[in-house]
Every structure is written in C-alpha cells, then in structure tokens.
C-alpha cells in the first residue's frame, strides 16, 4: 500500500539560491520525484512559521524551507534569522508531539542543481516511509 503513496511536499524556495538551484536541476535534466510543489519567496526569512503550519495542517505531507548557505544570503543575514525561527518552530512541534520530521530546513545554492535533486529525492523517500500526514484525515481541524 505504502508504495503507492506519493507524498506532497511544499517547498518554500528562496528566489536567489534555492529556486535557481531548482531551475538548474531542471535545465540540467536531472531526474527527481515530482513530489515537491515549489513556492518562490524573496528570502527564506520571508517564511512566517504560520505558512509552514498552514501547509502542515491542511495536509501537506512535508514542508521544505530552502535558502542560500549561511554567509551567502542575498540580503546578507536573512537566512540566519530563518534558522533561529526554524529552531523555535521545531521545538514547538516537538513539545506538542507533532512530527518534526515533516518539516525540514536545507541550504541549496544556485549552482547546486544536483544537490537540489538529491534533497528532494532523499526527503521524498523519507516521507514515503513516514506515511501520509495524519492531519489529512482530521475532521475537526
């Protein structure tokens, strides 16, 4: 049964690095699962934790936030703030007993097309093992 399950991963990709990395993966014709729905944001720090929770509670099987490597942010320091917020959100997930494996933060640069494909492949495999998001079936959400 679980083999049929194709996860939906919402990806918040920063406009300068990770989105360009995704583009490069595409133009380089790299193969990776079609599970990720990319959303382009100007900076990974634009992602309010509420966006991630919204996606999660509405039944996304996982949420990926990707930005420039630390030190390479187009806005100098945006991704450092992203990392702090993400650390806080992860803790909240853990405290409330929600699956923190369903949220992920990765750094992918504009030149890392193969890395982008690898991240999506690995994460999709992991979520496949984890199964569908239980929030999908919750009625009184």
């Amino acid at each position, binding site marked *: 049964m679980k083999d049929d399950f194709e996860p939906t991963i919402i990806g918040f990709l920063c406009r300068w690095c990770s989105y360009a990395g995704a583009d490069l993966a595409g133009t380089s014709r790299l193969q990776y699962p079609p599970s990720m729905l990319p959303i382009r944001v100007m900076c990974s720090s634009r992602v309010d934790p509420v966006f991630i929770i919204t996606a999660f*509670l509405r039944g996304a099987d996982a949420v990926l936030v990707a930005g420039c490597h630390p*030190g390479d942010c187009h806005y100098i320091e945006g991704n450092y703030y992203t*990392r702090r*917020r993400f*650390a806080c*959100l992860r*803790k909240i997930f853990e405290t409330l007993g929600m699956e923190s494996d369903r949220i992920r933060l990765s*750094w992918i640069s504009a030149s890392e097309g193969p890395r982008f494909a690898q991240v999506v492949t690995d994460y999709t495999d992991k979520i496949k093992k984890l199964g569908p998001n239980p929030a*999908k079936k919750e009625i*009184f959400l």
Partner: protein
Amino acid sequence: MKGAILKIENSIEKTIIEFLKKGLDKKLFDALLIPVKVPAGDSYAWVLVQDKALLEDANPLPPVMSVQGAKALSSITRRGKSNKKIAAIMRPCEIRASIELSKLQQIDLENICLVSIDCPGALPLKDYLEDTKKGIDTFKKVIKEWGNESVRPICQMCDKSVGLSIQSDLHIGILGAKNNEIYLIPSSQKGKSILEEIGIPAEESTDNWEKKTKEFVETRKKNRKKAQSTLSEKVMGLDNLLETFSNCINCHNCQSVCPICYCRQCYFESEKMKLSSDDYLIRAESKGILRFLPDTLLFHIGRMTHMSLSCVGCGACEDACPMSIKVAQIFSMVGDKSQKVFNYTPGKSIEEQLPLKVYEEDEFHEVEKP
C-alpha cells in the same frame, strides 16, 4: 541585598499606599498607575492618578488581574515617553511583560518607575465575579498562606512571582517579613534614590525575605514541573491537541488580552484568513467534511510561534477564555521549551535581546539538514 523596612499599619495595602503618597508629596513621581476598585465595587481597573485623596480605593495587590498591567502601561507610552514621572505598581508578571514590551518598542520606560510586589497569585476572574465578597475573603487567606490552591492554576505553577529575579526599580517584599513589617528592596538606581529621598535608605538586611522567597520558588518550580508533565501528556499529539482546542469558539479573546500580542493588525484577523468559498469547498471535498469556523488549531499554534518566546505566563488569556480552555498553561509550557532553545527568559533583563532579533553565524546546525 539591602532593603528598607516599613512597619505595617492597618494592612499591607494601606501601608504601601501611604508610602506611595509620600512619594507623590515629595514629587518623586507625578502620578501613580495602580489598580483601583471600580465604582460598582466588584472589580478593579487601572487608574492613572495624581490626587492623593483618590487613592482610598486603590489596591496594589488586588485579588484578580482584570487587565494586564503591561497593556495599561503600553497604552500610555507606546507613542513615546511620558513627560511626567509615573510609578507603576504591578504584579511581577506584569513587570516582565512590560520589559518585553519595551524591547518590542511598545513601552517607553524612561520616566517610568516600575514597582513590583511579591505575588501569591490571582484568583480566577470567573470565580471572583461570581461572589466578590467571598473572593475578597479567599484572597485574604491567599496572602496569609502563600500556597493556597484557590489561585489560578497558572499562578500555582508560577516560579517567578517573588524574589530577586524581578527586574523592577523597586520591589515590595511581603513574603517572610517578620513582626508586621514589609521590605522595600531597590533594584536600580531609580529605586535607590526614591528610598533615599523619602528618608528610608536601604540599609537593613533582607536575609529573611531572601531565604523565604528562595524556598517558595523551589516549591513552585516543583509544582511547575509536575503540572507541566501532566499537561504535556494530555495535549501531546495531533489528536489530543484537537481535543484540547475543540471547544474553541474562535473569539480571539486570548489574543486580544495578551500583553505580548501587540500587533495592530493580527495575521489571524487579516484578509489573509478570509478565504473564498472555493477554498473551503476544495478542502471539504478532499476530507468529505469541514468544520466551521475553520482553522482554530492553526490560530493557536500560529500564535505560539509568534509570541511564545516572550510569553511571561501571566494567565490573562486563560481568564478571558469563555470556554475554559487551558490556554495559559499550554502556552507557557510551550514558551518554557522554546525559550530554553535560546536560553532566554522573557522579562528577565532589559539588556537581553529578543532571540529573533539577533543571531550568531555558528549555531543551531542541528536544525539544518544536509
């Protein structure tokens, strides 16, 4: 730590009021911000008062916390500093919220003298309003006993309501004072000079107060740990969370009374949350059913991500919840955990930066996935 000692005359409240009157006389402050009994006599409201004669009904430690003091202070100074000196007499959680709000640029503490007082807790607003006479009697017992279980559950597990950790200018110690006395302990230059001007310099030893408050904090810490582990079992996991918040009627009272939730426009009340019918229909179709009003859990967890780092656990949200959801207990538990990530204690010090305003280049690598 040195402090001044005041002999109690009539009652603790009256003694404190007399002391404050002296401060007004000597022009050490031009006005007081203090809870005063409302004309109907059944509750308390914050009042900015200059006239000594109007202080008769004032109470520095009322049985309930009807409006969070930091909210009152913020409405005075959020557009800039006060041009007159104001002494604000507040509970420790209100002091902590004020410090957080000053970091968030919603309170200007220049010309404000924060006066805190050892707090045994506050009664649940609902219980108190049901029978105010009984409430007043119960609260008398609460002040006497220190550890009485009629105070709000969030107060029973509060470990920051007494002692040296409170960052006010002047602290009034009422716990562990001997022979009908109370302590005045200055914790800043402002507080020190006020005591000197009034003619009671801080020269007496406060060892007894320090010892007693330390013991009290220890008991409270134990209470907190115990209460939180029971609570965590009840709310952990999506199913339990849904059950806990299933009564929520989406009134947003918890948000509107929260001192930390200062945003003029809350995301959860913005146009962003008003979706088209198609959006709901699609969701209903994929699940087969959709509850209305929707997104209550999103509201609560979302609010946690927005304010839990500054949550002082004052319990205003729980008092305001018409459905008796344990909002404050859950939020302060989540707050404790998320604050620990950054080793941050809200309201502990004005110099300590808000965790999301600063960063280090080399940190939190455990949350980045290669």
